[in-house]
Structure formats: structure tokens, C-alpha cells
């Protein structure tokens, strides 16, 4: 339990040098037989949402495959656009018994000044899938392929919040194609989809699982996908790269982080676990096939680079929009 006394000492304002050394010894001793107690997985968003499903599925698969000797206990800590939950994890500095998944708000809320902690306060462990975005237009529109868009100078797209992957991609596509795609911020993915199907915005950048159902029903037409290679779930959708826009490459990595300064042995330990998860049949069945993501394992170092790159992209975009200085 994090409410225990040791925790209280760790975060007291007066921490003597002796206590610090004692804590350091305790941590390294713990690492030898890590993990020896249950691990908390903090979900900074509500039950039933994308982050919640992802976190619980990962925890479920690890448990099912009996990969670790202890339990993973998922806990929803909502509020502050993710800031509350991520702060809970980040303040357990060096404690390898707190896990969290990465989301868009993981980057954007701190950049917007809404959170005391940023991606720098976490240790990346590994990523186990990537979720590309699919650029779509309603089937009723005249645009059959990506380059057709060049015929029209201006479009609108819907995004969830001002700073999101959809907004980022709209900007990248605008620059690459020499057109203008303005982002209209909505309050949820459902509203974005309704605006798109109702013809209130003209193009969309959607998650694979959202796009799949509408494409199957013939309501939306895919133009391109943002991954480096074609997605196994959508073999017919060309990548931006194939179409000659190699600079439009942006996917969301589904990965796990721990608080900053966890011992390197712990990171190696989790890399091993997550690699097994990423290649497992259970993960494929319970997540990849359901959400149509691209199976992919990225180790801690690679994941860290992606986190930095993603953060830099958001930061640049916000500066361009004049949201931050």
C-alpha cells in the first residue's frame, strides 16, 4: 500500500542523508528479487475508454501468461486531463511498483501547463504495438485518392481537443500537399465522427478501430495511412510514404512507463516481459485483432526516442499555433 509509513518518510520535507542511503540500499536490495509485491497500474482516465482498455488488456495478458510472480492492480485515477493520474505515478520516483500507459495527454497536458509532471519524469519500459491513423473522407465526396485533395484549397477536419494527433496530422498534410486543413476541436471522438458523417467537416484522421466499422459499412473512404509500412489489418490502404509524402509518418506507440530513476535491471526485466506479451497469441487476439493496431515491439531505448520525438512534435505545433511560447 502506498499509504504506508515508508512512503510518508520518502516524501517528507526533511529527509536526512542517512535515510537517503538507507532508501537506496533498500531499492537495490529489492531489485535483486524484483518484483516481490503487487504492482499498481495507474490509469489516468475513466473506465471504458481507450487508455483503460489498453491498460487492463496488458495487465490481463501478463496475468494470463503468468509472466510475473505478483499481481498487477489497475486503478483509475481520473482528473486534470490525465495530470492527476500521471502525477500519482511520477511522484513515486525510483519506485518500480508503479506502471502507466502512454496517451496523447501524456504529452499535451504538461505542455499546456496543466500538469506538474512531464514525460521527463518517467522511465520508458517498452512499447508493444503501434496505432496508425487513417486519413478518410466520406464516401459521398468526390475525392478518390490523396492527390485529388489538391483540387480544393481548403478543408476542415475534426479533432478531439486543439492539440491532438489529428490536429498534428492535419498540419503535416497541409504542408505536404500545399492545401489548408483547419482543425475544428470537438469534445470527443463520437462528436468528431458525427461531424464527419454529417458532412460538417470534410476529412478525418481516425484510429483504426473507429475507421474500420465505418469503412466496412461503406460510409468512409480511406485515402492513406500514417504508418511506415502498410498495416496488416488494412492491406489495401497505401501509406503516405508510398504516395510520395514520406514526411507524414506518425503513429501512437502503445507502451508502458514507470517513474523516473527506476534501476536499469528493472527496465531490462520489463523489456523481457513485454517482448513476450508483444509476440503472444493472447495479445494478438485480445488487442491487436480487436483494435486493428500494428503489432510491433520497441525496446526501452527506441521507445524513449519516440517519446522525445512525439513531444518535440507537439511542442513545435503548439508554438506554431501560438498556444505556448
Amino acid at each position, binding site marked *: 500500500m502506498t499509504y504506508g509509513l515508508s512512503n510518508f518518510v520518502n516524501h517528507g520535507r526533511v529527509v536526512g542523508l542517512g535515510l537517503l542511503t538507507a532508501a537506496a540500499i533498500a531499492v537495490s536490495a529489492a531489485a535483486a528479487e524484483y518484483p516481490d509485491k503487487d504492482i499498481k497500474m495507474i490509469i489516468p482516465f475513466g473506465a471504458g475508454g481507450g487508455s483503460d482498455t489498453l491498460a487492463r488488456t496488458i495487465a490481463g495478458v501478463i496475468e494470463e501468461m503468468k509472466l510475473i510472480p505478483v499481481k498487477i492492480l489497475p486503478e483509475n485515477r481520473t482528473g486534470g486531463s490525465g495530470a492527476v493520474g500521471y502525477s500519482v505515478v511520477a511522484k513515486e520516483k525510483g519506485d518500480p511498483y508503479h506502471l502507466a500507459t502512454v496517451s496523447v495527454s501524456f504529452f499535451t497536458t504538461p505542455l499546456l501547463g496543466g*500538469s506538474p509532471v512531464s514525460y521527463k519524469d518517467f522511465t520508458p519500459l517498452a512499447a508493444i504495438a503501434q496505432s496508425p491513423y487513417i486519413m478518410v473522407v466520406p464516401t459521398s465526396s468526390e475525392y478518390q485518392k490523396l492527390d485529388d485533395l489538391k483540387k480544393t484549397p481548403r478543408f476542415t477536419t475534426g479533432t478531439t481537443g486543439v492539440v491532438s494527433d489529428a490536429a498534428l496530422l492535419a498540419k503535416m498534410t497541409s504542408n505536404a500537399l500545399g492545401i489548408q486543413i483547419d482543425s475544428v476541436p470537438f469534445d470527443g*471522438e463520437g462528436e468528431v465522427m*458525427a461531424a464527419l458523417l*454529417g458532412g460538417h467537416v470534410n476529412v478525418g484522421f481516425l484510429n483504426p478501430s473507429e475507421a474500420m*466499422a465505418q469503412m466496412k459499412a461503406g460510409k468512409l473512404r480511406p485515402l492513406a495511412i500514417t504508418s511506415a509500412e502498410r498495416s496488416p489489418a488494412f492491406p489495401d490502404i497505401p501509406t503516405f510514404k508510398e504516395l510520395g509524402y514520406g514526411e507524414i509518418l506518425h503513429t501512437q506507440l502503445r507502451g508502458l512507463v514507470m517513474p523516473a530513476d527506476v534501476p536499469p535491471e528493472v527496465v531490462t526485466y520489463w523489456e523481457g516481459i513485454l517482448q513476450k506479451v508483444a509476440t503472444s497469441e493472447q495479445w494478438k487476439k485480445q488487442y491487436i485483432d480487436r483494435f486493428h493496431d500494428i503489432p510491433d515491439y520497441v525496446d526501452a531505448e527506441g521507445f524513449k526516442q519516440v517519446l522525445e520525438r512525439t513531444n518535440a512534435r507537439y511542442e513545435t505545433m503548439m508554438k506554431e499555433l501560438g498556444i505556448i511560447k
Partner: protein
Amino acid sequence: METLALLWDGILAATDPAIFACTILGAVVGLLIGALPGLGPTAGVAIMLPVAAGFGGVAAIACLGGVYYGSMFGGAITSILLGIPGDAPSVMTVIDGYPMAQKGEAGRALGTSVFASFVGGLLGIAGLVALSVPVSRYALAFGPTEMTAMMCFALSLLSVLGGRNAFKGFVALALGLWLGMVGLDPISALPRYTGGSMNLFDGLDFSIVAVGLFGLTAIFTSLEANVDKPVAKYTFASLLPRMSDAVQTRWQLLQGSVLGFFVGVLPGVGASAATMLSYALAKRLSPTPEKYGTGIVEGVAAPEAANNSASYGAMIPLFTLGIPGSATTAVMMGGLIMIGLQPGPLLFTENPQFVWSVFGSFAIGNLALVFLTLLLTPLLAAALFVPTAYLYPIVIAIVVYGVFAIDNSTFNVMLTILAGGAGIILARLDYPAVPLILGLVLGPLLERNIRRTLIQSQGDLLVFIERPIALGLFIATVLVLSIPLFLKLTGRKKIAADEAEV
């Protein structure tokens, strides 16, 4: 007729003991969560999601649906008995329900709410099964422009809810609109009025303010009431529902159900706005509008019918298009995915049996809830016999836990207490609480949709009258505002609240 046959098959399928048990479980949990102040359908469905997903198939969604409409039944209970809105969509029920309970007619009020919920549910289900396809097309026609017009129309209808002094009513409305701005502005990504606190970053949850301003204020201002008002005033007979009320309120039930259904369908609007419109419409159309707010059954029937039918309306975009139009349906969509279904336009054609069985379970659950709540009514109403020195501490404790559970935050509990305290001053000085709550609900919808529209049109204001639906709604707005004025000027009819002495 084919639809009826399909629904009948669905109902038969839903009588399967396992599905029936899960439906009832969901309904009872919903009833309980709805009755707990603060927690509403979204929290309820989210809490039951992991459990329900374990049931799999029809049973899972029947259970989640049960939680959804069950909480619409349950929300009225505390609203009526204690003046504390059990969840957001039952705020309007407080306005007439609580005065009825104070008059010793708690049973009548509860009975009316149950009956209204049932009728609203029944008509909502009918709409869901018969009209879902055309109605989903209508929902898609509402973009930011139409939504802006809709909100203007709503505010024009709601101006009737002002209170005695119109100036103070508008100040309260403006304060509510301001409270709606607190948090991260979703259009410019600028945090407004958060004081740098991440607790306010997501904005103020409507329930937090409503529970404080209605519930705690009602408690805080009646601390002395029991001294000179003996509890023995209530008799057991007054705790029983009356059948005649159902007949008396038939028009409010019908209006409320139809309005609630169509407002509920619109993505992002929600059941709370539906109840407000329904109440305002009932008051507008009433020959005796001055009686609203004093504790009449019509004032309970209108919003309660609306919130139940709105919950079915909200499910239409989910089932026909795969679009979650509200927070609650977004969680239900999570449930569909978890049991291995792909919500989308093909759900109906690919899994007709599943969809119809779920709808069948709604019909069964709705009926079951009537019996459950009617049996509970005298029992619950008897809570009023408990002396306040015991009752109020218990109620306040429930409020504290309920509000905490919204976001697991003691900060929210603090806000609720402060809202309750501020409510005392507002109440004494005749600043009405209802417009403030309306502003909080409708303000963000209005502001965001105006700005969305102008992003789309690049600042061109003409779009508001170029689109037919928007134009129609604006004309209706002007009519609603000008007709009473015209009637008053020609001395034909008096409209309450519009005639504040200046």
C-alpha cells in the same frame, strides 16, 4: 409490423433466465447509483463495465443498459425526498419534487416520477426500435451551426425559469455561464480560471455544483425548520402514489418523452439539457405557469419522462452508427468492443439477433423497474420520519462519499460544500439557482459551437442563416421570445416570471 415481430422475438429472447437476471442486476445497480448523490449513469456504467463484460454477449449489454435507465429512475429519489439531485439529469425534478415532499406528498411525487420514467422509457424504446434509422440521419444533420441555433432556442425557452427578479435571474445565468468556462478552453487550449490548479483543468463537473447548490443549500437552509415544524405532519397515506396523477399529467408525459427523445439523440447534448427543455416547455404551455415550482405533479412528470426517453435516444447513434454521442454511451461502446462486437453501421445487419435481444431486455427492465421502485416508494419516503439530527448527518455523509467518487477527489467535496454555502446567500437574496445550473450546462455547448462554426466558416457570420435547420431554429427563438411579449402588450395573457416588477 415487421419491427414489432422482431421486437417481440427480442423480448422473448431476453426472458432467458441468465439475460433476465443480468438485466435486473443492472437495473438495481443503476437504481442505487442513480440515487446516490453525485454518481450518475456514466459512473454507473463504468463501474459495472468490468463485471458486465464477464457475462458476455446480450447479457453484458442488457446489464449495462439496465444501469443506464435504472439510474434515470433512481436519480429522482433523492431529488424528491431531500432536494439533492441524485444525478445530473434529475436536477429539474428537484424544483417541484422537493416542495411536494415538504408538503407531505413525497409518495405522490415519487409515484409520479416512477410513472413518468416508465412512460418516457416506453416511448423512448418505441422510438429506438421504430425510428432509429431516420432519426440517426436527423442527428447527423446537426453540426456546430445547427447546435448553436439549438442552444439559442433552448435558452429562449428557458428564460421562463428566471424567478421573481429578472435582473437577478440573468445575473445567476451569467454566473453559471462563467462557471462553465472554468477549465481548459477546448478551442484555444488556454486554461481559464483554474488558478493554476490541475483539479480545475477538466472544468467543473456539473453534478458537483448541482449537488451543492440544490442539495446542501436545501439542508443548510432548513437546519432550523424542524424546530417549529413537527414531523408528525406526514401520514402513511401520503406516502402512497396516486393513479389519478398519471392521467392528470398525460400531456406533460407525452411532451417530455418526445422532446427528451429527440434532444437525447443529438451528439454531445445529453439528458440534462433534455430535462431542462422539457420542464420549460411544460411551464410555457401551461395555463397556470405560476404553479410550477410550488410542488405540482406536472413539474415532476415533465423532466422525469424526458430523462428516460433521452437515455434511449442517446443509444440510437451508438447502435445505428457506432457513434457514442454521450459519455455514458461511450462507455457502453467500450462494453460492445469488450464482448467482441464492432459497433458501427453494420451492427444491425450483422448481428440483428443481438441488437433485438438487447432492445427486448430494455423493455423488460423498464417494466421491472416500475415494480421495484413502486415497492420501494413507501419505504424510501418513510426516511422523512427520521429526525433531522440523525437524517442530515447521514445524508451529508452520503453526499461526501458520492461527490468524492465522481473523480476520486476531495477537492470536489470541498467545492460542493462551498457551493452549498454560497447557495445560502444566493437563496436569501433571491438569486435563483436554476438559471445558474442552466448556464453551467448550456454555456459550454453554446460557446464551443459558436466558435466551431466560425472556425469552419472562417469568421463568416452568414452561415447561421444560410443553413435551413439553423435558420428555422433562430426563427423559432425569435417567436418564443416575442409572442409572450406581444400577448402581454395586447393584454391577452400573462406569463409568469416575464412580468417581474421593474
